[in-house]
């Protein structure tokens, strides 16, 4: 997650997701923002906090096999640049989604639940907790 251009690629991917959802004729703007937020957080939860191990063999005698991607990042060091970036982005998306849904209650509850599902696992207190 530190290599060159990966943050830009991640932003572009999120933007593309939003544009594609926005192009679905029968979806309203609030629904599109909530969908963007929920799909983004779902994908982030899956790839960063659910899948364990590495998709290829690593020479570390299986040490990484039981760790999620988030726990393997930067060898487990907390508060690195990548970790901050990946923590801030869902919050920004949540603020945008809340704004564009005009703080409607239903959307607010859905978006808040979705945001918490990706924020809690990122807390240092939950490192390695199952």
């Amino acid at each position: 997650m530190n290599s060159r251009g990966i943050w830009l690629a991640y932003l572009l991917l999120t933007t593309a997701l939003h544009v594609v959802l926005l192009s679905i004729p029968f979806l309203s703007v609030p629904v599109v923002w909530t969908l963007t937020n929920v799909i983004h957080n779902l994908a982030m939860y899956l790839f960063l906090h659910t899948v364990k191990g590495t998709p290829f063999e690593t020479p570390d005698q299986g040490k990484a096999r039981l760790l999620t991607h988030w726990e393997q990042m930067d060898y487990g060091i907390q508060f690195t640049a990548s970790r901050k970036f990946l923590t801030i982005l869902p919050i920004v998306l949540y603020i945008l989604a809340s704004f564009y849904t005009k703080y409607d209650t239903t959307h607010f509850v859905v978006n808040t639940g979705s945001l918490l599902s990706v924020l809690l696992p990122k807390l240092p207190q939950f490192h390695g907790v199952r």
Partner: protein
Amino acid sequence: VYHAACNGALYSRPFIESFEETPMLVAVLTYMGYGILTIFGYLRDFMREWKIEKCHIAREREEQKDFVPLYQDFENFYTRNLYMRIRDSWNRPICSAPGATFDLVERSSNDYNWTFEYTGRVVKDVINLGSYNYLGFAENTGACATAAGEVTVKFGVGMASTRQEMGNLDRHEELEKLVASFLGVESAMAFGMGFATNSMNIPALAGKGCLILSDELNHASLVLGARLSTSTIRVFKHNNMQSLEKLLRDAIVHGQPRTHQPWKKILILVEGIYSMEGSIIRLPEVIALKKKYKAYLYLDEAHSIGALGPYGRGVVDYFGLDPKDVDVMMGTFTKSFGAAGGYIAGRKDLIDHLRTHSHSAIYATSMSLPVVEQIITSMKCIMGKDGTTIGRSRIQRLAENTVYFRRRLREMGFIIYGNNDSPVVPMMLYMPAKIGAFGREMLKRNIGVVVVGFPATPIIESRARFCISAAHTKEMLDRALDVISEVGDLLQLKYSQHKVLL
């Protein structure tokens, strides 16, 4: 970005190394490509899970489901869903000596590379840019082959015992004397396997209470040897002297963790040429640091011995340094001598210690005699002891071929990594599909190349790696360069933004 470090006393020659950054657009498109392939990989795994598609790869049987998984399913995800699709570019069967040109067995696959069949045809005279054959001794004719043949007839090939028992022959001792005189050190010891030379001897040199400072791009054999030694291992950035000095300083100032006792020994592990990067170690600076902090230096010259230096004596010779400044000289006979195995050389007490404590000396059968003969003959040729100048001229030709090949590729606009004088030339490909496409298109035009991708390289630094040989004639190199340029245009690989003025 070019580093032309010619700081005065340390370097006796220009040290020019370049690692041009990945263009941002290419990096983003590379991530996108890997993302798309990963999504389709999940789709295929889903179909295999639900038996919609037959699963070719090994899996547990139903009865084994409750046991510890034998095949770490997710760990084979890349193998199953990315590597399989382009693996016809790897492990190609050859049916001749891996010389400047070689013959490939043609094979085809009807199920997208899950299985292969031989078509019965042979692809003749493919120009070989993939094998480590720096001085062109990988040949089945000439003095080396003849000498090896005679020894095979006279002594046979098997060595059914170890060096400490009956497997210690006079030819082995002659080889070790020759290696010691070739390197300019007191004594040397030869081992039957290059990888084992590192992994079995580092544990005999360092142990508990020792600190090993290892370059982040060190070979797996160095990593294994360091791990087996139970020493504390710290990794410094590739060829980065500031990073190395910082670790050395911390080690001296703080000592061991918790007890803060001084380290028993500090061993710096580096390689002469990093074959994946094409970079050459900054040996003058490393030696200056080791003297300053009283550390030991272990130099792995697997690729640089025979390939660098005016006399082929490796990176020490290349920088014109004193071999005695390097505490442990290690190298292999695989790349420049057309043989196999490795050596460790240095002071006599060091080698005597290894003769009694090395795992290989106690448990491994010693080197087969035809291989010993191949090494002796080729090394004498390099040293000029056979009365000819073949060795010298090959070293000269390799250096010329290397500089020429690198310059031409850079002029064409490719991004080339590493040092100007390194005979390993990594050329960047970046996107995952271009890895397979490059290997296939080059073979279509009768050039054999090696391509390398993630996870063996960083995800946005997939590359083709050309290995130059003294056996390549200028016509072969020009032919190869023309084909590389043609394929580079076809696949749009000329990414360099530092256009070299012709």
